[in-house]
């Protein structure tokens, strides 16, 4: 087990280097950021050169990348164009987005799996059909439409809650954005759980459990659900990374100053330090979440062992 984890962690190193390099090249390819600093005015060459020198933009690409990587290992992720160190941006942005993601995952798990179990147990009944129809609707409507509509109806029309999240982003204000962020994944979780449950109700071990005379509740929770959760866990695990990076739209709608906001700002301003720094952390989160999922398999299914 321990060796497995170490091997997986070591595998992250090449992924980390490759990902940072790719992103660095991509942001570099966006073009020269300095012209935009001057608005509709053409930069005077001397000032522009001075700014390029300050941010090291006058060096060749490989040199910039090496400088950047060298600095990362000393904990310096560079400086954003507004003068703030990127680490400072991360310190304010990541906790907010992580909280938003956890709220979303919470709804995904609680609502998604509950619906999945209910529909899986009652295939073909009215409740099954109506839940399936609902998930279809949710999946087919773009997130920003759902976001704006829910924001307007709930916060403006009904006056429950706030349309935007304050800078401190307390949990109670993150409920609505969390639901919006979770909706699509929630629909997938419902459908995955339903299929998985439906398949396993016919499995031998379930029949055995029922034949043993175990209470229905225990059969479902202990035997059926536990075995049906593997695909669902896989999905949720990869979704953590997806939700954190994909929160750009939701964060914009609800004015949450998290990772999505900083990335958006960084891309608009062609600020490689911000974009590479944030995406690098996202890559690591993604890798760790995947590792966690793999470890959880062993918990759910005793047949799976890691050496």
């Amino acid at each position, binding site marked *: *087990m321990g060796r497995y984890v170490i091997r997986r962690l070591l595998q992250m190193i090449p992924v980390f280097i490759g990902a940072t390099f790719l992103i660095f090249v991509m942001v570099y390819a*966006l*073009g*020269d950021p*300095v*012209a*935009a*600093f*001057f608005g*509709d*005015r*053409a*930069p*005077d*060459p*001397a*000032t*522009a*050169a*001075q*700014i390029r020198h300050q941010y090291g933009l006058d060096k060749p690409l490989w040199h910039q990348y090496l400088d950047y990587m060298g600095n990362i290992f000393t904990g310096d992720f560079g400086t954003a*164009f*507004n*003068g*703030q160190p990127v680490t400072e941006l991360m310190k*304010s942005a990541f*906790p*907010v987005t*992580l*909280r938003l993601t*956890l709220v979303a995952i919470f709804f995904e798990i609680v609502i998604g799996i509950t619906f999945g179990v209910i529909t899986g147990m009652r295939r073909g009944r009215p409740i099954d059909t109506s839940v399936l129809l609902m998930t279809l609707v949710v999946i087919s409507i773009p997130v920003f439409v759902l976001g704006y509509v829910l*924001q307007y109806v709930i*916060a*403006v029309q009904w*006056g429950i809650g*706030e*349309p*935007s999240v*304050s*800078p*401190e*982003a*307390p949990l*109670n204000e993150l409920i609505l954005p969390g639901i919006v962020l979770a909706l699509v994944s929630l629909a997938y979780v419902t459908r995955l759980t339903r299929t998985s449950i439906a398949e396993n109700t016919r499995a031998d071990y379930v029949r055995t459990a029922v034949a043993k005379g175990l209470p229905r509740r225990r059969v479902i929770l202990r035997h059926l659900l536990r075995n049906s959760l593997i695909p669902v866990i896989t999905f949720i695990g990869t979704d953590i990374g997806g939700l954190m990076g994909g929160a750009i739209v939701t*964060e914009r*709608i609800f*004015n949450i*100053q998290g990772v999505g*906001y*900083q990335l*958006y*700002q960084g*891309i*608009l*301003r*062609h600020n490689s330090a911000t974009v590479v720094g944030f995406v690098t952390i996202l890559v690591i989160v993604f890798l760790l979440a995947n590792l966690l999922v793999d*470890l*959880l398999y*062993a*918990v759910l299914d005793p047949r799976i062992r890691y050496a």
Partner: protein
Amino acid sequence: MRGSTRLKWAVCATAVALAATACGGGGSDSGGGGGASGIVSASWGDPQSPLEPANTNEVQGGKVLDMLFRGLKKYNPKTGKAENMVAASITTTDSQNFAIKLNPGWTFSDGDPVTSDSFINAWNYGALLKNAQKNASFFRFIDGYDAVHPEKEGAASTAQTLGGLKKVDDLNFTVKLGAKFSTWPDTLGYSAYDPLPKSFFSDHAAWLSKPIGNGPYTVDSYTKGQTMKMRKWAGYKGPDAAQNGGIDLRVYTDNNTAYTDLQAGNIDLVDDIPASQLKNAKSDLGDRFINQPAGIIQTVSFPLYDAKWSGPNAAKIRQGLSMAINRAQITEQIFQKTREPASDWTSPVLGEAGGFKAGLCGDACTFNPTEAKKLITEAGGLPGGQVTLTSNVDTGSHKDWSDAVCNSINNALGNDKACVFNPIGTFADFRSKVTSKQMTGMFRTGWQMDYPLIQNFLQPIYYTNASSNDSHYTNANFDKLINEANAEPDTAKAVALFQDSEKQLAIDMPAIPLWYQNGTGGYSTKISNVTLNQFSVPVYNEIKVS
């Protein structure tokens, strides 16, 4: 037992995830309207650069400087006239040497008095190449600028201070300009010329995290990228003290959200209504919807460095294209009358006396599809049979109006492919392409004035090799008229000369005037006396809280 260790792993994993979020919690008071008495919450955007006066050239940082600083002059928010603020008098006999006398008694909020040095040091800092200040070029009028800030890439400064600035005593200093510029004192209301306290130079980092100025507000707290709390400064002795307890600026990524927040009563003042909401804004807000002229003109320019557009017939084609654009319809349909069709190259905020003259462009800016088609056909048709219109599409409603302009041209010329829109993803990319002369057809150019002078709408944009001359237009007669106008001490005569230079633009049409942009905004029932100044920035210090 094997099972239990595995379970422990899972528990650990969850615990790590939870602990990571726990550190961020806290702060349960909901942001937004209300709070301390007399505080106005207002929408804001993240300033592009650190909040140094000579380094701030966009409106979001400008909002803060407007509250935090008072310069030699201030533009009257109603009339736009430059009125003395810290300056007691600015006099000259030859339009080149100016004597500036300061009013006594002004101090910064940290107690440091405002003296001649506060200005001289600030201007020297702003001009010096090493400091890479984006507004450095504003000091180019002052004698000795070339030594402090050489134009050429890679060149080094040969002097650390501007030779044209001479201190007489604590309240008097003189400025020598490099050339005659009679209306130069009127440019001094721009924030680049603000004075700076000693603490700016002694502890720069601390100053940047909590700027100190001499204006009616002080910075109470500043969380970069999120909020800035400005509070009324009780010790302010200027004539325009704040009428409210303070302003809480809050960063919005999306102005749609700011507008929704206004509707929900979560914020008091939103100063940029998104185009998609303009239709509803009037019915939603009634007379709390602001729509008033601002010193912004939108144009499309031509790459005159491209052989296709510099030929003898090209001016005629450019005029034809201008006539093919139905400005009235576009401003009404897309902008809901928050923009006015343009018929000169300035802005209505200048007023008649300041040099604005409706209709100066004449027939060339009047929609006339038949004449447009005739002109273009006579001139041999569009170069290459097609013209592109290039603009960034990440902000504003550039895509909407660009499509409309192209459609208008296509309809006039009876050719579906006469004009094609070429969108560019980000403003940064667009500007970098424009400044490196990569345009091949029409491209978007907008101009927000730095100070309400007709000179500012013409010289920086159309003078040979000027800083914003994106089309690289050059005309000896135009340059001559501008020089004459700058040297003319009589304002009325100077304005007439500037207008003559505009007539040259009407002939050459290096840029097609599209429309004058208004400032828009909306506010809650909690506040009153809300107006925008000519720069479309709310006049914060006059807002009253009920």
